[in-house]
């Protein structure tokens, strides 16, 4: 295992943690206009993620920073190649961050902030999946490592399918979180949403799998041809069954939430194994334009220093993150909102 390979899986891990953690608060944002009807319910929905969403989002910032440092060519290609999509994600995240912070301080504009919270959650939830779809499918590039396709080529059916699948997974995950944190009618509605969105996700996931096997055989061959691929397939299967089982039980909210978290781990693992040792494969351009780990990795010293930083930093971050989650455990009450 070279340092560069370690970094490939570390970046995958950072982004997976991001999807698990920010995923549920993005999901709550997408559900917000549908499940939270009274002012009190809206308050609970926002306060359920209020103390933690900001920290969750830092996983994306760290993940993007890690790609920049460890695989600069990949960072440069994706961010400039997926330009408009990346900017839409950015605008979404900005509006969402500000709306969460300003909503309770600003009665006059509350409809504006409610709308911004919903849209700012929906757009990134959808587009992050689309970007992943393109990364699995491959994109046309030149030898310098620049994207040579058009914006519309990014909106191909396969990537859109991955995007919508991801959206429903995130919403399911968010509904499970809201069910854990809420009471009364909001709780009941969250449970109902969780059920509907989970089954939509399940159907879409089957379609995505079939589409991958049929149109991106490189990825599926990699997964089926490697023990690690079978491992993540097994993780996914167990997590799906466990989540379904917990969804049928009263009081299984937290366990079904953990179940959807493990589903995300399984899917992310499959995607990573499917692309390894390429990060972004070429599609429609010569194979030497592919952004492979070996070709794009930073120098040895950079990777080593970063690894040391990560090994020191990650456990500390996880420890105090756990402390803060623990501080805000239990059902969220309307009175818990910010002063």
């Amino acid at each position, binding site marked *: 295992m070279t340092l560069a390979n370690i970094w490939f899986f570390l970046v995958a891990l950072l982004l997976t943690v991001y999807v698990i953690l920010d995923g549920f608060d993005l999901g709550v944002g997408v559900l917000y206009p549908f499940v939270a009807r009274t002012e009190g319910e809206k308050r609970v929905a926002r*306060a359920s993620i*209020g*103390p*933690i969403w*900001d*920290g969750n*989002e*830092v996983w994306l*910032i*760290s993940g*993007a*920073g890690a*790609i*920049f*440092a*460890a*695989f600069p060519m990949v*960072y*440069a*290609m994706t*961010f*400039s*190649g997926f*330009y408009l999509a*990346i*900017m839409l994600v*950015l*605008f979404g995240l*900005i*509006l969402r*961050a*500000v709306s969460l*912070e*300003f909503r309770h*301080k*600003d009665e*006059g*504009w509350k409809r504006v902030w409610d709308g911004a919270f919903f849209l700012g959650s929906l757009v990134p939830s959808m587009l992050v999946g689309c970007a992943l779809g393109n990364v699995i499918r491959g994109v046309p590039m030149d030898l*310098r*490592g*620049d994207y040579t396709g058009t914006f519309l080529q990014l909106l191909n059916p396969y990537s859109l399918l991955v995007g919508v699948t991801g959206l429903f997974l995130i919403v399911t995950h968010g509904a499970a979180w809201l069910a854990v944190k809420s*009471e*009364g009618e909001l709780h009941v509605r969250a449970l109902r949403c969780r059920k509907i969105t989970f089954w939509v996700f399940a159907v879409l996931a089957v379609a995505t799998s079939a589409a991958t096997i049929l149109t991106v055989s490189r990825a599926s061959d990699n997964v089926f041809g490697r023990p690690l691929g079978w491992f993540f397939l097994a993780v996914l299967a167990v997590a799906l069954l466990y989540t379904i089982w917990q969804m049928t039980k009263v009081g299984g909210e937290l366990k079904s939430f953990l179940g959807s978290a493990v589903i995300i781990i399984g899917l992310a693992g499959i995607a990573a194994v499917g692309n390894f040792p390429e990060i972004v494969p070429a599609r429609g351009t010569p194979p030497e334009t592919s952004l492979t780990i070996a070709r794009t990795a*930073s*120098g040895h*010293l*950079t990777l080593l220093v*970063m690894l040391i*930083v990560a090994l020191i*930093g*990650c456990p500390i*971050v996880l420890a105090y*993150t756990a402390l*803060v989650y623990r*501080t*805000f455990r239990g059902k969220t*009450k309307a*009175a*818990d909102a910010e*002063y």
Partner: protein
Amino acid sequence: MDAAMLARIQFAFTISYHFIFVPISIGVGMMVVLSEHRYYKSGIPADKAASNFWIKLFTATFAIGVATGITMEFAFGANWANYSRFVGNIFGAPLAAEGLLAFFLESTFLGVLLFGRKKVSRRFYYVSACLVWAGALLSALWIIIANSWMQTPQGYKIEGGRAVLTSFWAAAFNPSTAPRYFHTVASALLMGCFVVAGVCAWYMLKKRHLHFARQAMLWAISVGLVMALAMPLLGHWGALVAAEHQPVKVAAFENVTDTEDGATLWLFGWLTKNDDGTYDTHGIGIPKGLSLILHLNPDARVTGLDSVPAADRPPEPIVFQSYHLMIGLGMLFVLVLLLTLVMHYLKRLENARWLLWSLIACIPLALLAINMGWVSAEVGRQPWIVQGLMRTTDGISPAVSTGEIWTTLGLFGLIYLVLFVAWLRIFVGIIRKGPEDVVEMLEADKVGAPAPAGAGR
């Protein structure tokens, strides 16, 4: 307009906008720590109300600072792909480290500040406030490390058309890191002091919350004066480093066209263009002053702009004026703070309406000074994106069209304008409302305490 210029405009706009909220956050963050420390020690409701007030101003500003900060991280890959490929080995690491070692700290404990008042102990809350502020200071350190490497690159070698790290410590603590970090932090603290002093001045003008205002005012002007006096020294340190490593930038600061012995230090002036592309300076200056402060010798030689070809020189008028505006404002701040302190000890401050209004006016002026400092530092480095290694025009994203940059520039303009209006309304609204009334706060706490009776089930 070409893509490089458009991308520069977009970066300049988004970073200047971001840097409205950063210094206010760092500066008011200090006030949060100080006031929360006071409440932690005393446990008096009035101290709690005071601390809550600063926390509200802090969090409202911090939120928009965080949100607009993501733009900056995305901007390198999106608009500056060639640059990112060239420097990723070195420049990416501090950005990743910022996330892991600083950003997590501030964001996670911000949640406690926002939602934890009734859930955690006074000590936990106080420590959280300290950690948020520490995170902000660390965050600034990593960003200044990254930016300083663009000014005075060290600890690298060029290999296969990219900069590869050879020494982490040499790259991170390159010659300009320390002076620029302390200069930046001091400016942010000064900014915060002006926000605090301005708010207190407004209360004094309106004769409201006077007890609160007197106490905070004294803190703000004491710390502010220390910072305002430290600024020229820290700036001077930075200028000495720049004179050694970026002599052309220093030449542009004072428009030293030809390398000369005994160069002039200009207090203010204007530039007129000559036929050969150089500029003449007109204004008031101290003869031989620049040589004296840079080399402690009035006849020392100062490298001029003529030491490099015309294509390697920054646009002198912008650099000259932004630099001198920054210094002029810095002097003004010392004067205002000194006067305020004197009037405070003469017990005449609260009736000196002109001085109170001056303190309020210093809030936007301090922002202007900070921005002018950055303009002189960044434009002064042009035409280089990394001093001596890569030109700004070579750093762009070949895959991004000018139409796409125009589109996003327009969207940034629109969204940022709306956010600015919203932030200002909220910020001013918090100030208008003022610190909570202690009696009301105690009543509210009594209602809040036995919560299970009402809300829960």
